[in-house]
């Protein structure tokens, strides 16, 4: 085999190895949930799983408003004990060029939101005391008019491998995802 071919094969294999590790890695202080807000409780595609003993966590919640829902909702991080957090929204833009409709945001509340609007929220959690025990929270979105739940994002603090790449850490992650999604569906059925 020519030297050039060997180099290409080694480079390809090394790239796939690095990519596999990179794809398996999940930062323990970050979670992203892809959501949809609906009148009957919403859908959260990725429950947020965070590690223990960290100074800071960031949760990204991106979502779309599914018709016919419109109006507004307040966002609350529920769980015991309460943890200090701040919610930031990407919308409305600082420079409003008047080309499109954007919802408003203030005091952890989104208002003036229309069907098919998208929202992006960054929830920054900086607990005064580090979270040392496994605990479950929920980021809940309540409709401003009816106070009905229009979206719920499960947020769990749990023991994760430092790099979150070992099978040991990976398995509970997947199981936990399935469990939380199952719980969410159950709660939806019972609320209906």
């Amino acid at each position, binding site marked *: 085999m020519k030297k050039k071919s060997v180099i290409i094969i080694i480079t390809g294999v090394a790239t796939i190895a690095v990519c596999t590790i990179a794809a398996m890695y999940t930062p323990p202080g970050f979670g992203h949930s892809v959501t949809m807000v609906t009148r009957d409780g919403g859908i959260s595609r990725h429950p947020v799983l965070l590690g223990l003993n960290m100074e*800071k966590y960031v949760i990204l919640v991106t979502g779309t408003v599914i018709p016919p829902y419109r109006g507004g909702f307040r966002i609350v991080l529920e769980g015991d004990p309460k943890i200090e957090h701040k919610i930031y929204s990407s919308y409305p833009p600082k420079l409003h060029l008047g080309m499109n409709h954007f919802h408003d945001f203030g005091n952890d509340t989104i208002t003036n939101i229309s069907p098919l609007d998208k929202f992006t929220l960054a929830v*920054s959690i900086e607990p005064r005391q580090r979270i040392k025990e496994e605990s479950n929270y929920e980021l809940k979105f309540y409709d401003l008019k009816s106070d009905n739940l229009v979206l719920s994002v499960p947020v769990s603090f749990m023991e994760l491998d430092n790099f979150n790449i070992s099978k040991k850490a990976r398995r509970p992650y997947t199981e936990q995802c399935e469990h939380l999604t199952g719980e969410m569906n159950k709660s939806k059925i019972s609320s209906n």
Partner: protein
Amino acid sequence: MKISNQKKRFLIIILAVLAFLPPLAFVPRFFGSMSICGSPFCMRMLLSFEGFSAMSKTLFMGLFLIVTIFIVSFIAGRFWCSHVCPIGGITEIGSKAVPDTMKINYKWIPAPAVRYSYLAAFLFLPVLGVGSLCCSYCNFSIISSLFGSVTNPASRVLLAGFGGITDILLLLLLGIFAAGGRAYCNFLCPIGAIDAMFNWLGSKIRFLKRIRIDQSKCNSCNQCIKACPVWAIEKYSDNSVKINQLSCIPCKICIEKCQQDAISYQKEEYLSEKDLIKSGSVYLEPH
């Protein structure tokens, strides 16, 4: 006043930055988004497992962009990459501000091998349930957030929080501090990887224009090899210089650098094998 081709190209890239990236982001704003990232324009998400299964309806502009880019690349070359892409363009422009002595040269790495291995991982790792490379290591995401952070507190939080440092490091090492400023494009852009295949396929059709070298004029001075931002020009042991159409973007820097006028953007028919043999620049091995 005559504006050079490179200045025109950079001007188009700056216009693309204003059109696609915050704080103005004129084009995504028409669709209610503030950035190309996470908006209906996201092209890479379409290539991900979830994109195919669930997001294709919401990423309709991304689909339109991808199809348009691939058609243009097949017919005329990778003009999206060289002239429009605000992400690759901004790192190339940014790298101009870095002194050459501080730049990292990745030319020794076989770029197509990295690029297509990365593409394979990008497409198949989510299907195999290993995890996804989409979003976490995306320069579209990090550059959009950097531009957005000027006015958007959520972008600032994300940059500081979610491995933003890793992404910024990637951007610096493979973008601004890379020789040519296009290492990220050359190694890790899945759209660029597929786009390059369309470019390569198109280059096989003689009447389609591409950057080509007239071997009869080339004096092997290596100026084009040094200047190429995507390391697409290769020199062979027989001193011939060839363009790898799997990496070439029609930035035309090589055309401007060539003192011999040996490089041009033209059809293959002008540089037919017969002409090359006639000119003596191609040596046919005796049987």
